[in-house]
C-alpha cells in the first residue's frame, strides 16, 4: 500500500495492464512525452514506441484508429487530452464504437477505453473545463465512468481496459492531485456500474460524482457539525450503466434526495437521476427531489471570481442540504 494521487493511480493502472496483457496499447496526443497531465509518464520507456504512441493532432482518428485496431486483436487506451476536445471524435464514439456491436447483431465488439480529463475548477476557461458525461451517458452501447479518487481510478480503469465494450473514462482533472490516499500496490478491480456510499447518513441522500463528491463530503461534514443533519453521500462512479439500486436504497432510507452535479442544470446527468428517484421512489419521498448544478452558461469562465460564482461548492451544497432537510 502506498499513498498516491489520482493521476499516479491512473498511470499505475495503465502500466500494470500493459504489463499484464501485451495487447494493450496507449495512443493519443503527447502521450509518449508523458501527457499534459503526466498520466502516461514513463510508459514509453517501459513499453516502447509501438505501445505508447503519439498520434497526429486528430481526435476523430485517435478514436477511429482505436476502433479499427480493437477489431484486430489490439486493446487500445485512447487518450483525449481534454474532454473539451472530444467533440471532433463524437461521431466515432457515438455512431461507431457504441453502435458497432448492436448494428452487427453481436458480430463485432469494440474493446476500447477512451480516457479524458474533464471538469472545471482549475481556471481552465470554456475549453478546458467541460463536463461531457451527460452527452455520452445518453448513448446506449457506451459505458461512462466518472472517477474522483485514486483508489477508484485505479480499480475502475483496470475494469475499463478489460471490458469487452467501449468505455469513456472521465477523470476529474481538479481531483488529479487533490489528495494522496492509500492505493493498493497489488492488482484489484472495481466493477463498472457500481456506486459506492462514501459517507453513511440517515436524514438526506446526496447523489453525486466527480469533483462534486469531494464538495458534497465537505458540505456533509459542515451540516453535521453545525446543524446536526446526517447526510449520506453516494458516489455514482459510473453513470452508464447506472447503479439505480444503491440510489433508491439510500433514498428509501432518508426520504430526501439532493442530486449534485457540476454540469449545467438543464439536461445534466443529475436530471436523469432525479427522474429515476421521482418515478421509482415516490412513495418514500418526504420532500422535492432537488438538484444543485451549474447555471446554464458555458462552463466555466476563466476569471477566478466568475468560475467560483458559477460552480457548485461546499457552501452552496450545504445551503441546499439545509433547505431540503427543513422541508
Amino acid at each position, binding site marked *: 500500500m502506498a499513498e498516491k494521487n489520482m493521476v499516479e493511480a491512473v498511470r499505475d493502472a495503465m502500466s500494470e495492464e500493459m504489463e499484464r496483457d501485451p495487447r494493450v496499447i496507449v495512443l493519443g496526443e503527447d502521450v509518449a512525452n508523458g501527457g499534459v497531465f503526466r498520466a502516461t509518464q514513463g510508459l514509453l520507456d517501459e513499453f516502447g514506441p509501438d505501445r505508447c504512441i503519439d498520434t497526429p493532432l486528430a481526435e476523430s482518428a485517435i478514436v477511429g484508429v482505436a476502433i479499427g*485496431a480493437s477489431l484486430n486483436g489490439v486493446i487500445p487506451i485512447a487518450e483525449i487530452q481534454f474532454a473539451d476536445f472530444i467533440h471532433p471524435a463524437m461521431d*466515432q464514439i457515438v455512431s461507431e464504437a457504441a453502435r458497432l456491436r448492436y448494428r452487427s447483431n453481436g458480430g463485432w465488439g469494440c474493446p476500447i477505453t477512451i480516457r479524458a480529463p474533464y471538469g472545471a475548477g482549475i481556471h481552465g476557461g470554456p475549453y478546458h473545463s467541460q463536463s461531457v458525461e451527460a452527452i455520452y451517458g445518453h448513448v446506449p452501447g457506451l459505458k461512462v465512468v466518472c472517477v474522483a479518487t485514486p483508489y477508484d481510478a485505479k480499480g475502475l480503469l483496470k475494469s475499463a481496459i478489460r471490458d469487452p465494450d467501449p468505455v469513456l473514462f472521465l477523470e476529474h482533472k481538479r481531483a488529479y492531485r487533490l489528495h494522496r490516499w492509500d492505493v493498493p500496490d497489488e492488482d484489484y478491480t472495481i466493477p463498472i456500474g457500481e456506486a459506492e456510499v462514501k459517507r453513511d447518513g440517515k436524514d438526506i441522500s446526496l447523489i453525486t460524482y466527480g469533483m462534486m463528491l469531494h464538495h458534497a463530503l465537505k458540505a456533509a461534514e459542515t451540516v453535521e457539525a453545525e446543524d446536526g443533519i446526517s447526510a449520506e453521500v453516494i458516489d455514482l462512479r459510473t453513470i452508464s450503466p447506472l447503479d439505480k439500486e444503491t440510489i433508491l436504497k439510500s433514498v428509501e432510507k432518508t426520504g430526501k434526495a439532493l442530486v449534485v452535479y457540476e454540469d449545467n442544470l438543464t439536461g445534466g446527468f443529475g436530471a436523469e437521476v432525479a427522474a429515476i428517484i421521482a418515478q421509482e421512489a415516490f412513495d418514500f419521498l418526504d420532500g422535492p427531489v432537488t438538484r444543485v448544478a451549474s447555471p446554464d452558461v458555458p462552463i466555466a469562465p476563466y476569471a477566478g471570481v466568475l468560475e467560483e460564482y458559477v460552480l457548485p461548492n461546499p457552501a452552496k451544497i450545504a445551503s441546499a442540504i439545509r433547505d431540503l432537510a427543513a422541508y
Partner: protein
Amino acid sequence: MEVVSVRESPGGLGLTGDQLMDMLYKMMLARAIGQRVRMLNRMGKVPFAVTGEGQEAAQVGTAYALAPGKDWVVPYYRDIGVVLVIGQTPRDLLLEALARGESVSSGGRNMPSHFSDPKLRIVSGAAVVATQIVHAVGTAFASKLRGLDEVSMVWFGDGATSEGDCHEAMNFAGIHGLPVVFVCEHNQYAISVPWTKQMAVENVSVRAQGYGFPGVTVDGNDVLAVYGSAREAVDRARRGEGPTFIEAKTYRLVPHTSDDDDRRYRSREEVEKWAKKDPIIRFQAYLQEHGLLDAKERDDLAMKVAEEVDAATEYAENAPLPDPESALKHVFAEEKGR
C-alpha cells in the same frame, strides 16, 4: 482522364482463364443482386435499397487482389461486388436486404448494404460517410503492430473525400506507412452533388502525394485496369511499403437510393452515355475478343446468375423475421471477458 492500361493480353496480369470468368461472374452477380433488391423495394418488400449498378468493375477488380479471410475488408454501402468476391453469398445479401433474423450482417438492424461478416473480416459499416476509412487504418495499424502481413482495403465514394475523417485517416496511414489501400469509387455524384462541387482537382488521387504515398487514377469501368492497380497496391502494402490511394473513375447507373430520383440532377443523355461504357458489357466484349467467352457461355452465365438470385430471394423471403425482442440484445457483450 488519365488511364492506366494493363490489358496488353489477358494473361498479362497473371490471372487464369478461370479467374477471368469468375470475375465476370461476380460482376454479373453483383448487378443482378442490386437489381433484385431494387425490384423488391418496388414490390414493397424491402423498405430501402442502396446498390451500386455500374460500379462492379471498381468493386470486383479491387477486392480480387485481396486474400479473403486474411485481409481486412472495409466496404461502403454500394459494395455488393466487393463482398461477393470476399465470400458473401447471394443468400447473405438477400437475407440482409429483407432484414431477416439470420442475416449475418446485422440480423435486421442495419439498412441493406451495410455489410458485415466477422469470419470474412468484412467490417460493419455505418451510414455516416467516411468514418470507415479511419477504421481500416486502425485494422492496418494493428496488423503492423502485431507483425502480421495482412492488408486492409477500404472503399468509399467521391463525396467521402471531402470529409475530415478521410484526411485524418490518410494522414495517419502515411505517417505510419501502414498496409492499407484506399479505394475511391469515383462515381461522379454524391447523391445530387456533382464531383466538381466536391473537389477542385481533376484527379483526387493527387492528394495522396500530400500524405506521402502514391495515388493512381484508373478507368474504374475497366475491371482489369482496376485489378492491375489494386494488385500493385496490395503487393506494396504486403511488402511493408505503405499505403496507396486508388481512384477508380466510374459511374452510378442508378439513382442514389430507392428514395432518390436522379432525373432531377442529371440528364438521361448523360446516363445513356455511361451505360454504353457499362463495365460488364465491356468485360464480356473483351473476353469474347480474346476467345475466352462465346455467346452461349455468356448466356449460360446470365442464366446461372438469375437462378442463383431467384433461389436466394426465395430462401430469404421464407426465412423468419427477427424475433422482436431481439431488438434489446447486443447493446453490450452478453458474456464477460474476451
